[in-house]
């Protein structure tokens, strides 16, 4: 009787352990029917575009029959949580798509493999194949941890017909023109606005501040957010809200505001919007265009973002993973990827392709990319940017807010985040 109980306990323990270990990493070497060794790597892709990743994986498998690729698509919202778990358990993907803003955090935790020692063996990964700004996003404290995959940069989207009505045959070229055009568009009537300022967009203000001559951080890494160049940028952004040219709490998204009568006929966004507008607002075909950003006091540099491909530090299949990353970095692959997802290639060579040279929108992106700079790559930047959004919320929701005082507070907060 006692033996039987012991046996039951043992059996159930084994069962539980079996279930638990089943959750573990699946990347392992197996043998296929013909006796060849097959390596399986798991690739984590993110967002909508990751759903097209299996198609690329098929092409890769056709070239490399002894490597099997398992793609897992994660939504952006939950990807960060999943990556935290992967770092904590030191088990996870072999190759992972990394949003450029996440690189510092995960590279600092040493979760991403430094690719420098492998560059001779995999020349396709070498930095000079890609746009320098994009390489910068994949570099952390001298380590090359993310291979540029696709890039994005922000440009101005505008309704050509509506701007023409208020006297603009071309997109606004300067900040002053932008303000003027937005005001005139807002004056069309009740419930009409000029410029859909995205108050939840982290990088927008830092990008504009650079256009206005702010360095964001000084050489010693101290924040400069209470200096005139930055404060004036915040005042400039707030001016759109104050004079009613930018909607607050309208409850409609950029495209809904853009189509039809054009509730908000200008907005700043990335390349993914081109396809979305074509799909969701076919009624305004030929009535909209993209343009490089209006110039501030210093320049019209945009921000540079996108996604890189990294090899997870704890992978057991480094060689196969590197092969896959190299495959994804090839100009031909990137052009194929662009066809599938409309994302812009990071490879310089890919940009010689006629499609990118001739299409009006892609030409604008190419032009803007020449000078685009990524956001600062420190691990605290994400937290600083989040704090900026709350400070800016206080500014635009309070009538007659003291911008200088808010920015003094924000600067202090940023200092304490950096010194933590």
């Amino acid at each position, binding site marked *: 009787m*006692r033996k039987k109980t012991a046996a039951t306990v043992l059996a159930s323990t084994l069962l539980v352990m079996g279930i638990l270990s089943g959750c573990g990493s699946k990347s392992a070497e197996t043998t296929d029917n013909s006796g060849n060794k097959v390596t399986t790597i798991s690739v984590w892709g993110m967002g909508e575009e990751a759903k097209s990743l299996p198609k690329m994986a098929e092409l890769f498998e056709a070239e490399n029959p002894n490597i099997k690729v398992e793609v897992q698509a994660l939504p952006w919202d939950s990807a960060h949580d999943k990556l935290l778990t992967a*770092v904590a358990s030191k088990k996870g993907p072999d190759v992972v798509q990394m949003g450029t803003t996440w690189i510092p955090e*995960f590279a*600092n*935790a040493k979760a991403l493999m430094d690719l420098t020692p492998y560059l001779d063996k995999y020349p396709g990964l070498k930095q000079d194949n890609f746009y320098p700004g994009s390489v910068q996003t994949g570099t952390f404290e001298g380590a090359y941890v993310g291979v540029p995959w696709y890039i994005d940069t922000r440009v101005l989207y505008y309704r050509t017909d509506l701007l023409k009505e208020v006297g603009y045959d071309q997109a606004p070229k300067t900040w002053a023109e932008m303000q003027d055009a937005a005001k005139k568009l807002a004056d069309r009537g009740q419930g009409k606005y000029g410029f859909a300022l995205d108050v939840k967009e982290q990088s927008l203000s830092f990008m504009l501040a650079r256009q206005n001559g702010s360095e964001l951080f000084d050489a010693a890494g101290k924040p400069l957010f209470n200096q005139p160049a930055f404060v004036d940028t915040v005042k400039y952004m707030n001016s759109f809200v104050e004079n009613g040219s930018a909607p607050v*709490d*309208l*409850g409609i998204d950029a495209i809904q505001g853009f189509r039809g009568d054009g509730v908000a006929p200008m907005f700043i966004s990335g390349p993914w919007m081109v396809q979305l507008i074509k799909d969701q607002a076919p009624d305004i075909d030929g009535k909209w265009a993209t343009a490089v950003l209006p110039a501030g006091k210093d320049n019209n540099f945009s921000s540079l973002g996108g996604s890189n491909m990294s090899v997870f530090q704890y992978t057991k299949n480094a060689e196969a993973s590197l092969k896959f990353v190299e495959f994804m970095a090839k100009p031909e692959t990137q052009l194929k990827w662009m066809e599938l997802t409309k994302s812009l290639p990071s490879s310089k060579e890919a940009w010689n392709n006629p499609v990118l040279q001739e299409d009006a929108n892609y030409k604008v992106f190419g032009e803007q990319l020449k000078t685009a700079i990524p956001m600062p790559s420190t691990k605290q930047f994400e937290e600083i940017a*989040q704090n900026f959004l*709350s400070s800016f919320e206080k500014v635009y929701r309070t009538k007659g807010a003291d911008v200088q005082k808010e920015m003094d507070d924000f600067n202090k907060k940023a200092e304490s985040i950096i010194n933590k």
Partner: protein
Amino acid sequence: MKGFTSRKAPYFFIAPAIILLLVFSLLPIFVALFISFTNMDLAGLADYSNLSFIGFKNYINVLSDPVFLKAIFNTLFYVIIGVPLVIVTSLGVALLINLGTSKIFKVFRVVYYLPSVTNVVAVAVVWTYLYNPAFGLFNYILESMNLSAIPWLTDPTVAKLSLILMALWRAVGLNMIIFIAALQGIPKSYYEAAQLDGANTWQQVTKITIPMLKFAIFFVSITTMIGWLQFFEEPFIMTKGGPLDGTMSAALFIYKNGFQLSNFGYAAAGSFILFIAVIAVTLVQYRVQAKESDY
């Protein structure tokens, strides 16, 4: 031999529950306590040698963080307004449904229960549309009656009430079922005796039903209060804690710091403060309940 196994047998039966409780509840609490005294972040998670003990610094910082204090205030707001509303509404619905004898009331029992079994994410997304300032059904109705639109989710105080309204709608069903079950456990003879003495329906409800439901009310109030102290999904999906941190709850603050900004130590300190608050509230309620005599 036989006596031995039969004495041991109960332990085997409760072993799975005990083991699950230890591994998934008690152990994590101690781990969180440990983490709250460290500067654990992503680097510390990847390599424990990056970890250092910083004593009570996390607790001191979190208690002086204006956002955390606002989150505590908001959470109290949710609890103080939400909990009584849930109890009164679900008790009211339960009483009315129980009084009715027609078949239609059985149908309504299901109707009221449906929100509780619907996925909270789906519900929150739909309610976000209802609350939408431009296309929302609620503002559409108000405007068609020539009333002015309400800033449902865009004013810090109104947004809190909007979230409470939705959570109330969701919570009524489950608690109503508990109350109905308790109502049906009250012996009919009490009512018959009262009717013989000439008590009307109102008197029966206040003098027999409510006192007899005391334990059910106690149970519902404790579970509801603990639930509302950990109010999370609704603000997380509908407002992300905004506008101006007006709907930020303590649980959402912990999530944001822990999983978005990777300040695990800081978040653990916040969660411990919440944990102590929940324990304290529960103990106080037990005391109050224990003082009153039982039937």
